[in-house]
C-alpha cells in the first residue's frame, strides 16, 4: 500500500465505521417507527405492504390509554413544578447568604445526586405502606421530588450564582422584600436555567418505570410507562403495530422536550458546570 492509498483509507475509514455504528443504532429504532404504521407489523423490521394510521387511532381512542398518559403528565408536571419551587427557595440562601456549613451541604447534595435510587426503593415501599402513601399518585410525586431535589438544588444554585445581586438590591431600595426580590427579579432572569431543570426532571420521571412499578398497585392509577409495560406483557406477542404506536406516542414528549432543552442549553454539554462549589 503506497502513501496515497494509505491516505485514502484514513479518509474513508472513519466514515465507514461511523456509518456502520449509525446503522446498528438505527435498526431497532426504525422497527418501532415502521411497525407503528404497518397494519401487519411483525417482530422483525420489514417494509409494510401498505401504511395505516389505524394503530395510532386505536391507541389514542382508548380511554385507558388516555388516562395513563394523563396520569403520567400530571405526575411529571407536578414533580417539575414542585421541584422548581422548592429548588429555587433552597438555592437562594445557598447562593446569596453567608452560611457556615454551605460547603459541606453542597457536597452532600452532590453526593446525593449520584446515589442509585434503585437501592432505596425497598425501604421506600415499606415507608409508604406505613404512612399510607402506598398506591397514591401524590406519594409518587413526592418521592420523585425528593429524589430529584439534590440535582435541582445543585443546578439552580449554579444558575442563580450567575445572576448579579445588584439587581435585587435595587429592588430592595424600591421596597421589595427578600422573597419578592427572588420571585420578581431573580426567577425571571433564570428562566433558561429553570426550563433546563424542569425539562430534565420531567423527562426523568416520564421515562421512569421502577418507581411507579413499586409504589403503585391499582392498574387505574398507572402512568404511561407502566401501561406500556402491561401492554407489552398482555398483547406484545399479538399486536406489534399498536404496541409500536403506543411506544412512539409515549416517547414523543421526551423527544420534543429534549429538542426544546437544546435551545436553553446554549453553553453546550460539559461536565465543568458542576465545579463551582
Amino acid at each position: 500500500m503506497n502513501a496515497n492509498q494509505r491516505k485514502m483509507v484514513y479518509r474513508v475509514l472513519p466514515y465507514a465505521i461511523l456509518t456502520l455504528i449509525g446503522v446498528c443504532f438505527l435498526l431497532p429504532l426504525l422497527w418501532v417507527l415502521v411497525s407503528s404504521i404497518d397494519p401487519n407489523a411483525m417482530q422483525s423490521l420489514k417494509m409494510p405492504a401498505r401504511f395505516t394510521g389505524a394503530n395510532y387511532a386505536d391507541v389514542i381512542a382508548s380511554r385507558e390509554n388516555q388516562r395513563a398518559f394523563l396520569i403520567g403528565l400530571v405526575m411529571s408536571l407536578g414533580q417539575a413544578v414542585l421541584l422548581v419551587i422548592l429548588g429555587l427557595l433552597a438555592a437562594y440562601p445557598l447562593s446569596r447568604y453567608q452560611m457556615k456549613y454551605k460547603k459541606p451541604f453542597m457536597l452532600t447534595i452532590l453526593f446525593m445526586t449520584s446515589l442509585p435510587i434503585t437501592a432505596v426503593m425497598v425501604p421506600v415501599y415499606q415507608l409508604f405502606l406505613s404512612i399510607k402513601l402506598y398506591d397514591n399518585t401524590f406519594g409518587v410525586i413526592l418521592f420523585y421530588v425528593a429524589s430529584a431535589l439534590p440535582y435541582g438544588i445543585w443546578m439552580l444554585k449554579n444558575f442563580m450564582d450567575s445572576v448579579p445581586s445588584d439587581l435585587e438590591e435595587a429592588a430592595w431600595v424600591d421596597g421589595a422584600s427578600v422573597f419578592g426580590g427572588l420571585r420578581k427579579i431573580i426567577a425571571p432572569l433564570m428562566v433558561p436555567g429553570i426550563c433546563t431543570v424542569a425539562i430534565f426532571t420531567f423527562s426523568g420521571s416520564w421515562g421512569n418505570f421502577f418507581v411507579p412499578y413499586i409504589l403503585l398497585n391499582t392498574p387505574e392509577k398507572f402512568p404511561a410507562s407502566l401501561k406500556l409495560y402491561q401492554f407489552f406483557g398482555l398483547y406484545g406477542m399479538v399486536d406489534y403495530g399498536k404496541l409500536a404506536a403506543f411506544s412512539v406516542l409515549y416517547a414523543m414528549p421526551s423527544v420534543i422536550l429534549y429538542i426544546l432543552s437544546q435551545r436553553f442549553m446554549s453553553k453546550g454539554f460539559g461536565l465543568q458546570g458542576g465545579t463551582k462549589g
Partner: protein
Amino acid sequence: MSGLAIEIGRGKRKNKSWIYFLFPSVAVMLVFFIYPILLTFFYSFTNLALTGESARQLKFIGVDNYIRMFEDPTVRVSIWNTLIFLVGSAVIGQQVLGFLIALLMKHKNRMFRRVIGTIVLAGWVTPEIVCALCLYSFFGDEGTLNSIFSLFGLPAVTWLYTVPMIAIILGNIWHGTAFSMLVFQAALDDVPSEMEEAAVVDGASRWQILIKIVLPFIKSTITTNMMLVTLQTLGVFGLIYAMTGGGPGTATTTLPIFMYNQAFVNYQLGYGTAISLLLLLMGIVLSLFYIRSMKE
C-alpha cells in the same frame, strides 16, 4: 437612603431567615430520601416480610440476612452478573464507543455528523421501556437480527436465550452511549488544536497524538464520566426486567433484579433490603470517588 435600604436588605440576609428557604427542601429530602437510606441499614438486620408470621412481628435477627447472603449462590451469581454488566455496558461499551464516535466525528462533514449524532441521541432520549421493547424485537426469535441473518443464509439464533447477557449489554449501550458521546465531544473540542498541530510538525503519528496528547488532556473528563456512567448503570432495572426478566434462569439477574425478586416476589423485604444495602454501598463508594474527581 438607598444605601440604607441595601444595608437593611443585607441585614435581612444575615439573620436566620435562610431556615425558611431551606426547610421545605430539606424536610422532603429527609423524609423521602435520607430516612429510607437509614431504613435500609436498619431493615437489613430484621426479618421484615410482606406475609406470614414475620410480617406481624418485626424481629431483630442480627447479621442473619448477611450470613444468608454470603451462603446464597444466587447472590454470587448476581454480583458477578452486575460486574459483567457494568464493565461490558458502562466501562467498555458506552465509554469506549462514546469516545470513539466523538473522536471519529471530529472535523467531519457537518451534515454527516448531524445525522449520526441524531441517531445515537435518539436511543438516549427514548424512555427505557421503549428501548427495551425495541431491543427485544431486534433480538427476538423472529426479530430483525435473525431476518438479517437469514438474508445471508445463516441459521436463526435464539439471542435472548443463548446470549442474554450480551443482549442486555448491547441494549444498555444502545440506550446510554449518547451521554458519553456528548461529554467527550465537549472535552475533545477543548483540546487546543495548536498542541496537535505542533505534534504533527514534530512528526508524531495519529496514534501517538491520541495517546500522548489527547488522552492525558481529557483525563479528568474520562474519570468523571466513568464514575457517572457506572453509577447510572448500577441502578438499571427496567431495561433488563422488560427485556429478559432476569432470565433465563439467573443468567441476567443483576443485583437490582435480584433485590426486586427477593423483596416483592418472595416477599422477603428484610433480605431484599440487605441486598439493596450492597447496591447502596457500591453506589456510595463510587459517589465518593466521583466527588473527589469533581473537586480536583
